[in-house]
C-alpha cells in the first residue's frame, strides 16, 4: 500500500491493476490473489494426477499377465497405496478446491475470496505436503498399507519404516489446505455476494461449492484426529488402536470412513456443479428444477455423513446396524436421481448445442450412472459380503470417481479454457481425446466388475494362472493404456490451444453467469465495478454488463485509496452491508507453510527439538499475520475520508472474520466430537478396554481451573458487550484482566496435567485422557495469547470504540474453550463415575 501504488494516472484498469497485481519476479510467490492461486492449485493438481496415473500404469503392467514378477510385492504395495493416496488427497480434492477458489468470486461478483492470505497458506500446505508425500516414492519408503491405512497393518509393529509416517504427517499437512479452502469458501459464498444476489438467485454452482465447503468443514476433522492419534501411537506408543492396551483397530476404520464417505461426495458435488452449470448453457435455457437441485444437494450432504459403515460391512457388525446403513446408503440414490432427471429435463426442453464439453458430460452420464447402480448393489449387505475387497469394488469406485469427477472436470476445463487463455479449444483433437479415454476407461473397468465377481481380491500383486482372470486382466491393462493415450491427447490439445486456439470472443458460449463478465484472461481484480444482481441469469438478461462493469458504472469503482476492496453482503438477501478491505501480497503464508513443513519433516525423522522450533516459527508468523489486520497501518488505518455508507468491515461488529471464526470452530468442534466418539466407542466396544483403579485426575484443581475459565469468559463477554455498545472505557485494563485470569486457568490446568497419574503408553484410556487435557491446554493457552495481543492493540490504537471488530471475533473462541472444558469434564470425568468405571 505504498504511495507509488496510489498514484493517479492511467486507465481505470491500469490503476486497479497497480493495487491488485502480484509482486513482480519472485515476488509472485507472495501472491494472495485467488485467480493466481486457483490456477496454481489446478496446475499442481494436474501434475499429481499424472504421477498417480503413472503409478496406475505400473499396476496395470504388473497385472497384465498372471504370475509376473516385474514389480516385487513390496514395491507393488507402495505403488497401489500411493496411487490411491495421490489421486484422492493430492489430485481430486485439491484440484476441485482450486477450481472453486478460481471461480467462486467470479460467479458471485466479488474481487477476491474473503481471506486471501489463507488461500495462499492453503496452496503452500498443499504443495509442500504433496512434495513430502511424493518424495517417499523417490526414497523407496512410501506408505504400503493401502490408502485407508488400516491399523494394525499401518502401526509401528507391522510397518516399522517411515512409510506410514509419510502418509499420516503428509496427508494431515495437505489437509490444512482443504480445511482452509472449506472455511474460506463457505464464508466467501455466504458473505461476499453481489448486492442483491440473494440465496435464491445464487448460481447453482455456488450451492454445490457451498455444500462441498461445509462438508469439508465437517468431514475432514475425523481423519485429522485419527491421523494424529495413529501418529501418536506410532511415535510415542499410545495404544489407541492396539488391543493389548485397550484400544481397537476398528476405531481407526470408523474415524477413517467418517471422513472417507463424505469425501466421495466432497469430490462428486463440485463435479455435479460443473454439470449443472454446463447443461443449461449448452441447452440455452435455465436449469430445470433449480429448487429441486438445491434440495438434492442439501440432502446428499446430510445423508453422506450417515453411510460410513457401508465400507465396513465385513467386520462383523450387528444385524440392525447393517440394515440401517444399507437403507441409508441406498437412499442417497434419490437425490442423485433427482439431479439426473433435472438434467435430462433441461436437455429435453432446450435446444442442445453439440460441443466438446457436452461430449464429456455425456461420458459422465454413462459412467457415473453405471457406477451409481453398482453402488446401490454394494449397499446390499449380502452382496457386499461377496464382492467387498474384490476387483468389483475397484471397478465400482473408479466408475464413480472417474465418471463422477474426472469427466465433468475435463468438461469444465474445456468450458472454461477460454476464460484462462482467451482462446477457444480445438474440436478434432479433443474428440479423439474423449473417445480414447472413454473407450479405454470402459475396457479397463467394465470388465473388472467380472474379475471381481470371479473372486480376484483387490491389492494382490500377482495371481495364479487359470483362475479365469487372465484374459480379463490382460484386457483391463490394454484398456488402461488406451485411456492413458486419451489423457495424453487431451494434454496435447490443451497445450496446443494456448498457441493455436482461435481468440475467444467475450462470453463465447453465451453463458448466463458473471464469471464471463470479466476479461479473458481476467484482471487480478476480476471486476472494475461491482454490479447489482437481481436475477439468476445476469448475462442473459443484461448482456451489456461486461461493458458497463469495465467502464466503472457500478459499485466500488474508486481505487485512489489503494485498498483492495470488495462488498460484504447479507448471507441471505445479498444486500450490501459493508466494504471488506482485503490484505495485499504477503510473504507470511509462505513463511508459515515453510515452518510447518519443517515441523512435518522433523516429526518424520523424529528430531523433536527441530519440530518444536518449527512450530514456534509457524506460531510467530501466524501471529504476525493476525497482527497486520484491521486498523494496522499496513491494512486499513483510520482515515478521515473513509467510506461510511457502507462502512469498512473492520469498523463493524459482524465482519467476515467473525464468520470465519465460527466456521473454524465448527470444524474444530467436529474434531473434538470425534475424540468423544473415540472415547465412548472404546468404552463400549473395545474388546480389551480396561480402566485403571482410583481417581487419576485431581478433581479439585480441575474444577478450580474450570471456575477460573468460566469467570474469564463471563468477564470477556461483558467487555465485548460494552464495546459493541461503543463503550471502550478502560478497555486495555480489562483485556489485561481477562488475560491474567485466563492465564491462571491455564496454569492450574498445567498443574492438573502434571499431577495426573496417567500411564498413556500403557492404556488407551489414559492416552485419551491425556489428549483431552492437551486439547484443553492448547485452547486455553491460545485464547490467552490472543487476548494479550488484543490488549496491546488497544494500546496502539488499533482497537477502540470506533474499531470494535477484533474482540468480537475472539469472543466465540473463548466461549468455545469454555464449552469444551465443561463438556470434557462431563464426558471424560463425570460420565465414567456415573458408569461406575473409574
Amino acid at each position, binding site marked *: 500500500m505504498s504511495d507509488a501504488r496510489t498514484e493517479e494516472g492511467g486507465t481505470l484498469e491500469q490503476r486497479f491493476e497497480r493495487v491488485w497485481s502480484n509482486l513482480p519476479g519472485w515476488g509472485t510467490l507472495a501472491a494472495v490473489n485467488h485467480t493466481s492461486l486457483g490456477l496454481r492449485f489446478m496446475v499442481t493438481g494436474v501434475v499429481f494426477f499424472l504421477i498417480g496415473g503413472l503409478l496406475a500404469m505400473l499396476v496395470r503392467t504388473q497385472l497384465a499377465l498372471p504370475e509376473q514378477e516385474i514389480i516385487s510385492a513390496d514395491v507393488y504395495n507402495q505403488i497401489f497405496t500411493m496411487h490411491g493416496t495421490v489421486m484422492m488427497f493430492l489430485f481430486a480434492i485439491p484440484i476441485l478446491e482450486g477450481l472453486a477458489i478460481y471461480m467462486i468470486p467470479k460467479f458471485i461478483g466479488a474481487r477476491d475470496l474473503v481471506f486471501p492470505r489463507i488461500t495462499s497458506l492453503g496452496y503452500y500446505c498443499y504443495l509442500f505436503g504433496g512434495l513430502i508425500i511424493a518424495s517417499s516414492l523417490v526414497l523407496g519408503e512410501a506408505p504400503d498399507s493401502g490408502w485407508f491405512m488400516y491399523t494394525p497393518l499401518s502401526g509401528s509393529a507391522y510397518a516399522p519404516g517411515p512409510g506410514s509416517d509419510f502418509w499420516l504427517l503428509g496427508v494431515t499437512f495437505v489437509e490444512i489446505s482443504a480445511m482452509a479452502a472449506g472455511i474460506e469458501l463457505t464464508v466467501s459464498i455466504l458473505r461476499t455476494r453481489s448486492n442483491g444476489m440473494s440465496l435464491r438467485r445464487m448460481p447453482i454452482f455456488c450451492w454445490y461449492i457451498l455444500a462441498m465447503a461445509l462438508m469439508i468443514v465437517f468431514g475432514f476433522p475425523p481423519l485429522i484426529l485419527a491421523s494424529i492419534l495413529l501418529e501418536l501411537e506410532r511415535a510415542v506408543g499410545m495404544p489407541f488402536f492396539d488391543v493389548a492396551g485397550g484400544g481397537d483397530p476398528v476405531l481407526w476404520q470408523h474415524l477413517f470412513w467418517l471422513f472417507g464417505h463424505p469425501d466421495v461426495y466432497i469430490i462428486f458435488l463440485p463435479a455435479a456443479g460443473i454439470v449443472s452449470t454446463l447443461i443449461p448453457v449448452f441447452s440455452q435455457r435455465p436449469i430445470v428444477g433449480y429448487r429441486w437441485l438445491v434440495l438434492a444437494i442439501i440432502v446428499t450432504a446430510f445423508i453422506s455423513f450417515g453411510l460410513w459403515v457401508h465400507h465396513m460391512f465385513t467386520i462383523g457388525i450387528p444385524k440392525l446396524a447393517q440394515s440401517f446403513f444399507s437403507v441409508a446408503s441406498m437412499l442417497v440414490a434419490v437425490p442423485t436421481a433427482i439431479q439426473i432427471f433435472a438434467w435430462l429435463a433441461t436437455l429435453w426442453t432446450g435446444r442442445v448445442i453439440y460441443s466438446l464439453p457436452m461430449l464429456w458430460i455425456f461420458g459422465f452420464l454413462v459412467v457415473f450412472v453405471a457406477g451409481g447402480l453398482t453402488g446401490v448393489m454394494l449397499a446390499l449387505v449380502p452382496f457386499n459380503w461377496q464382492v467387498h475387497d474384490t476387483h468389483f469394488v475397484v471397478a465400482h469406485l473408479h466408475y464413480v470417481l472417474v465418471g463422477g469427477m474426472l469427466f465433468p472436470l475435463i468438461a469444465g476445463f474445456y468450458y472454461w479454457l477460454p476464460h484462462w487463455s482467451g482462446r477457444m479449444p480445438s474440436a478434432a483433437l479433443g474428440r479423439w481425446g474423449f473417445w480414447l479415454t472413454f473407450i479405454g476407461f470402459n475396457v479397463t473397468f467394465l470388465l473388472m466388475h467380472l474379475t471381481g*465377481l470371479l473372486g480376484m481380491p483387490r491389492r494382490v500383486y500377482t495371481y495364479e494362472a487359470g483362475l479365469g482372470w487372465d484374459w480379463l486382466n490382460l484386457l483391463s491393462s490394454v484398456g488402461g493404456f488406451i485411456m492413458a493415450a486419451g489423457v495424453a491427447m487431451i494434454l496435447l490439445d490443451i497445450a496446443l490451444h494456448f498457441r493455436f486456439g482461435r481468440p475467444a470472443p467475450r462470453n463465447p458460449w453465451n453463458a448466463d453467469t458473471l464469471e464471463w463478465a470479466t476479461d479473458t484472461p481476467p484482471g487480478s481484480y476480476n471486476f472494475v465495478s461491482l454490479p447489482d444482481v437481481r436475477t439468476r441469469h445476469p448475462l442473459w438478461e443484461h448482456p451489456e454488463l461486461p461493458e458497463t462493469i469495465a467502464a466503472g458504472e457500478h459499485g466500488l469503482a474508486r481505487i485512489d485509496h489503494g485498498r483492495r476492496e470488495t462488498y460484504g453482503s447479507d448471507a441471505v438477501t445479498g444486500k450490501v452491508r459493508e466494504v471488506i478491505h482485503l490484505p495485499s501480497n504477503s510473504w507470511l503464508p509462505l513463511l508459515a507453510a515453510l515452518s510447518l513443513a519443517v515441523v512435518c519433516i522433523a516429526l518424520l525423522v523424529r528430531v523433536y527439538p527441530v519440530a518444536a522450533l518449527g512450530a514456534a516459527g509457524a506460531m510467530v508468523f501466524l501471529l504476525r499475520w493476525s497482527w497486520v489486520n484491521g486498523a494496522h497501518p499496513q491494512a486499513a488505518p483510520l482515515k478521515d475520508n473513509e467510506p461510511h455508507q457502507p462502512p469498512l468491515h473492520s469498523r463493524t461488529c459482524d465482519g467476515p472474520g467473525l464468520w470465519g471464526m465460527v466456521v473454524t470452530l465448527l470444524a474444530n468442534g467436529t474434531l473434538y466430537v470425534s475424540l468423544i466418539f473415540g472415547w465412548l466407542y472404546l468404552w463400549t466396544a473395545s474388546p480389551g478396554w480396561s480402566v485403571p483403579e482410583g481417581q487419576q485426575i485431581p478433581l479439585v484443581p480441575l474444577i478450580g481451573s474450570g471456575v477460573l475459565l468460566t469467570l474469564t469468559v463471563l468477564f470477556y463477554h461483558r467487555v465485548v458487550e460494552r464495546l459493541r455498545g461503543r463503550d471502550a472505557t478502560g478497555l486495555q485494563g480489562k483485556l489485561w484482566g481477562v488475560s491474567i485470569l485466563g492465564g491462571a486457568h491455564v496454569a492450574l490446568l498445567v498443574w492438573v496435567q502434571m499431577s495426573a497419574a496417567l500411564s498413556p503408553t500403557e492404556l488407551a484410556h489414559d492416552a485419551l485422557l491425556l489428549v483431552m487435557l492437551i486439547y484443553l491446554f492448547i485452547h486455553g493457552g491460545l485464547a490467552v495469547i490472543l487476548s494479550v495481543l488484543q490488549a496491546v492493540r488497544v494500546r496502539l490504537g488499533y482497537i477502540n470504540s470506533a474499531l470494535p471488530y477484533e474482540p468480537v471475533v475472539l469472543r466465540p473462541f473463548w466461549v468455545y474453550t469454555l464449552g469444551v472444558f465443561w463438556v470434557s469434564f462431563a464426558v471424560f470425568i463425570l460420565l465414567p463415575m456415573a458408569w461406575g468405571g473409574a
Partner: protein
Amino acid sequence: MFPRLLTAKSVAIFALFIIPLLLGGCAGPLSTLDPAGPAATAVAWLWWAMFAFSTVVLLAVVVLWLVAMRRDPDGVSEEAARRLQNRWIVGGGLILPLASVTVLLAFGIPVGHNMLPVAADGEDVLRIEVTGHQWWWEVEYPGKDIRLADELHIPVGVPVHVHVTSEDVIHSFWVPRLGGKLDAIPGRDNVLRLVADEPGTYRGQCAEFCGLNHAHMDFTLEAHSQEAFEAWLEEAHSDE
C-alpha cells in the same frame, strides 16, 4: 459429434455378443457366480437380478439422454416445461429409486439374515476356529484336538460356524463359492456360517490386504460326505 455407432441397435448387438461370453466365463475356482452352497447361491441370484435391472435402467437413461440431446424442442412452452419437470423429477428422481430400493431390500435383507450364524433349534453345527496370521491360516477343531494350517475339512450339508480372529493384522476369511467373507480382527471373534452342498475342494483366499504376502494367503476347504468326514476326523485326530 456422436458417431452413429452408438445407436440403440448397436448397443443391443454388443450386448448379445458380450452376454454369452460373460456367462461362459462364470466358472472358476474362486468364482462367486459358480456357487456351491446356499449362501453363495442366493447372492449369485441377487447379482443376476440386480445386473439385469441395472442394465435396463442404464440403457433407458442413456437413450433418453441421447434423444433429449438430439430432439428439437420447438413449441415447449414454459408451462409445459414445468409440467415435464415435475413429472420427470418426481417419477425418475423419487419414485424410481425409492421403488427399486424397496424391492431390492425386500429381497435382499432376508438373504442377508439367512446368512447370519444363527443355529436353528436343534440344528447340528460344526464349530471351527480359524486364526489369521501373516500370511497363513491356523485352523482348529475345538474339542477334537486337531490343528491344521491353510486347510479346512467340513461335512457336506452340515452348517459350519467358522470363528474367525487374528493374531496380528486384519485379514479376511473368504471361500467365494460357499458364501461371503468375514474379517479376522485382533481381539474379536467373528462367526461365519458356511454350508457346502456338494463334496469337493473349494478354494479360499484372504480378502483384506494384510501386507507383503497377501496375494499368497490362500487356503483350501474340502467338503466330504458325512461318512468320509467322520473317517477324516478319526485319521486327523490320530495323526496329532
